[in-house]
């Protein structure tokens, strides 16, 4: 168990591409941190640098008290779970899990005991003599987990471990991984592009965009106070509505007809980006805001209305008991849950 410290860690590839801009993070002992972002944002590179599979161009990485920049992956006392599981196809489940211990010179009895223990935790007892090819996707995932936990590592690294599973299994494994991590109390770094996984599993989320950290915070902080339009748009499904509004005499003008019912922030620019979460918007009201509904998406528990508000795309999420039809729909925008972003830089105001 250890605290992980990244101090201005940076990755530049030989061709000059800067995959990860200098970033500093401190991950306290026992925390599960999720790195989330779109493809190519550098989240996997960052994880692989922590694992030691990728060189760190600049900066300092500590696991526990030691600087591990130049340590081999095997000497960092970490365990990693890969997206495609990376199980050794020619070894049985038991051998797969015990291989790391064997290489560290553990005795046969010790390996046997640890493997049995891991198999018990992960309900793999009946499969120890099978080959990976004889297991289902979920079972393979468990074996990969088992391989990680038998070694009692100081740090777990997960590289999109659930993306090869079907939706139902993914939800189940998500909970399993989370509860296992909490039970073992091991620090973990988890990479995903799925914002639902990020929200549900993380103690803290690190949102990355184009090799840069956009925001670090708890799921609630990230959701309630996104630091930029990127975070606002990335976290949450459907994403936050972002409207470009003109500031005219302390009021926010969306178009010639529509005024937003919220006071304008003090700002040097003459326009501003205003954000509303789709679920914060209510149906009905005094008619000051009219949504032109074009598409209704039925999701069972909620219903999504997609359309335009003053010529700008806008989505509203309503409960399953509320009724709406395609066409003009009067809505009420919230007065308190409003997010303002800088019109050019996209940063939160």
């Amino acid at each position, binding site marked *: 168990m250890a605290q992980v410290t990244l101090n201005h860690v940076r990755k530049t590839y030989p061709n000059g591409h800067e995959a990860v801009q200098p970033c500093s993070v401190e991950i306290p002992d026992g925390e599960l941190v999720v790195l989330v972002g779109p493809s190519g944002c550098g989240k996997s590179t960052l994880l692989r640098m922590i694992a030691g599979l990728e060189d760190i161009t600049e900066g300092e990485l500590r696991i526990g008290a030691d600087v591990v920049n130049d340590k081999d992956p095997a000497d960092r006392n970490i365990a990693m779970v890969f997206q*495609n599981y990376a199980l050794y196809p020619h070894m049985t489940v038991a051998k797969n899990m015990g291989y790391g211990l064997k290489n560290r010179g553990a005795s046969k009895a010790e390996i046997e005991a640890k493997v049995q223990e891991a198999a018990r935790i992960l309900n793999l007892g009946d499969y120890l003599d099978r080959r990976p090819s004889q297991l289902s996707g979920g079972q393979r995932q468990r074996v990969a987990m088992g391989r990680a936990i038998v070694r009692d590592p100081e740090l777990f690294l997960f590289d999109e471990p659930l993306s090869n599973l079907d939706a139902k299994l993914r939800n189940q494994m998500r909970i399993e991984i989370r509860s296992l991590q909490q039970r073992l109390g091991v620090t973990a770094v988890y990479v995903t592009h799925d914002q639902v996984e990020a929200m549900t599993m993380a103690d803290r989320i690190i949102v990355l965009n184009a090799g840069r950290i956009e925001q670090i915070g708890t799921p609630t902080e990230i959701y309630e106070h996104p630091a930029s339009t990127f975070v606002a748009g990335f976290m949450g499904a459907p994403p936050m509505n972002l409207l470009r509004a003109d500031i005219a005499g302390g009021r926010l003008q969306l178009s010639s007809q529509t005024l937003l019912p919220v006071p304008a922030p003090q700002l040097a620019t003459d326009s501003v980006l205003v954000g509303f979460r789709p679920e914060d918007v209510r149906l009905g009201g005094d008619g000051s805001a009219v949504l032109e509904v074009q598409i209704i998406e039925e999701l069972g528990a909620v219903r999504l209305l997609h359309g335009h508000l003053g010529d700008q795309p806008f989505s509203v999420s309503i409960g399953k008991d509320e009724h709406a039809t395609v066409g003009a729909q009067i809505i009420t925008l919230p007065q308190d849950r409003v997010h303002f972003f800088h019109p050019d830089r996209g940063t939160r105001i």
Partner: protein
Amino acid sequence: MADLTQAGAVARPLTRPRKRIRWNRIVDHAVLITGSLFMVFPVFMVLTTISFEDVDIVQKGLQIGLEGRMAENFHDAMFEASGFTKTITGTRMLMNSLILGFGFAIGKIVISMMAAYAIVYFRLRFATFAFWIIFTTLLLPLEVRILPSYEAIQSLGLANTYTGLIVPLIASATGTFFFRQFFRSIPEELVEAARIDGAGPVKFFIDILVPLSRTMIAAIFIIMFVYGWNQYLWPTLITTDEGMFTLVRGIKQIVQVLSQTGAKIPEYGKALALSMIAMIPPVLIVIFFQSWFVKGLTESDK
């Protein structure tokens, strides 16, 4: 094929009450049977000819039928010393051939696996260049560079040794190329998982790469063993000591030596018996490793 047509027949039992003649299968089998006959018949003729007296063979050529000399000819072929110096027996030649076949196949696999391992998994300077250099040796088989090779082996004092017989044959790129392609198809994550599991380069090679390659190894072993076994030119050149003769070149020698002396009728029966014996090990190797090969393919490990 067969299952499909049967399934169709079962699905429509009323419209097709009688079993249809499956022309497809008949044609398939006709082709296969003809082909097999073509292959097997000469061998069969050789086998029957062995049972004849040498005199009959010289006079009438290959024979079909059964005379009494079968066992005798095989016995002579295996155990009677012959050749110019009367020191070489069939068993000795068989052993030499086996040493050449196994030595060549195993040596080739070991060398080419290691070369491919270095090229694929290590960030070497000029690795690609090195690979293409190795690859160009495909254009230079032993037959092309036979004189310099002979010169080199001779001056190293390796003529009439197993080393001299085997090593120059090993130097070619086929195996390296196959293993390189295979290694490149192994997922990167497997290497990384092994690194995190604390497996160094040697452990990764022995614990992971070699077991994963076993179907490849079996396939290359078949090809290389037969290739080595059938070598004629190089053994003829490098082995002058009759004790080092391989089967493939020894057969010729028996017929030649005896006909040159002119005192006796060439021992064709014995030579034919030897050629039959020379066929057996490659066939056994193919049969044995084929089952491995198929097993490996159907398990789809990777």
